[in-house]
């Protein structure tokens, strides 16, 4: 008679390290998450069917409210004061309310042009393109 083997492999998942893994994940999430720097402005952005993704690199960002307030790095400025405040950069993002007077935006564009900015990005919300595509 053959004696049966009584070796049994016990598979145990080490739960002791679970807390460490969980905390590591938690720290990763906290460190990598970014806080949105938008000032406390309620902006209704215009819609557009044509849009590009704005790259996440450091950009100068201006917020323009419905009433014409220009906010740069949490401070309010006048168009004429922007020239002295804006740093040398390549791209500027303008987030403006759709009800803002375009005249003000045009003045900002002129300021940016005189400060040798190369690109301007107008932030928009996506609009579903329902128009007939060109043949």
């Amino acid at each position, binding site marked *: 008679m053959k004696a049966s083997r009584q070796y049994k492999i016990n598979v145990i998942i080490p*739960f002791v390290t*679970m*807390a460490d893994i*969980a*905390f590591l*994940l*938690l720290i990763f*999430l*906290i460190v990598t*998450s*970014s806080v*949105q720097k938008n000032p406390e402005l309620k902006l209704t952005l*215009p*819609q*557009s*069917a*044509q*849009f*590009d*993704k*704005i790259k996440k690199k450091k950009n100068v960002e201006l917020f*323009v409210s419905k009433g014409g307030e220009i906010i740069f790095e949490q401070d309010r400025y006048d168009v004429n004061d922007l020239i002295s405040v804006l740093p040398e950069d390549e*791209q500027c*993002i303008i987030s*403006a*309310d*759709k*009800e*803002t*007077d*375009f*005249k003000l*935006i*045009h003045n900002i*564009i002129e300021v*940016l*042009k*005189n400060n*040798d*900015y*190369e*690109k*301007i*990005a*107008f*932030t*928009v*919300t*996506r*609009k579903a393109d329902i*128009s007939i595509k*060109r043949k």
Partner: protein
Amino acid sequence: MKIKNKFKLTYEIPTSSQSDIAFLLIIFFIVTAIFFERTGIIFRLPKKSSQTVQLSANEFIKVEAFNDYLNISGNETEYEGLENALMQLSRENKKNVAIIYFQEDLKYGNFIKIFDVIKKLGNIKISIKPMERV
């Protein structure tokens, strides 16, 4: 002789529930996180040193922008008809320059509507000017 009290209170922080707390926090972070992707219309500005070019009337598309309607090379049109009107003009006359004259109280949202269509049409250079007061 006094009998010694053998009861000792031991203080311990319960570590067994630590992983539960951590996972609950992770789930909270994942659920509340928003994938923030920004979209925008990007355009290049001319250089400060760039020279101005004079164009004759038949070399560009003239767009007069009002809040309620548009005037494209003399033809009044609604914002909805802008795409077709511009497409027709750029096809017929092969014009790749558009000059947008905007009314003083033009809303930014309406400008974006025009810009949206121009961008869709492709290689059209634009110039923006305020409308001259009559």
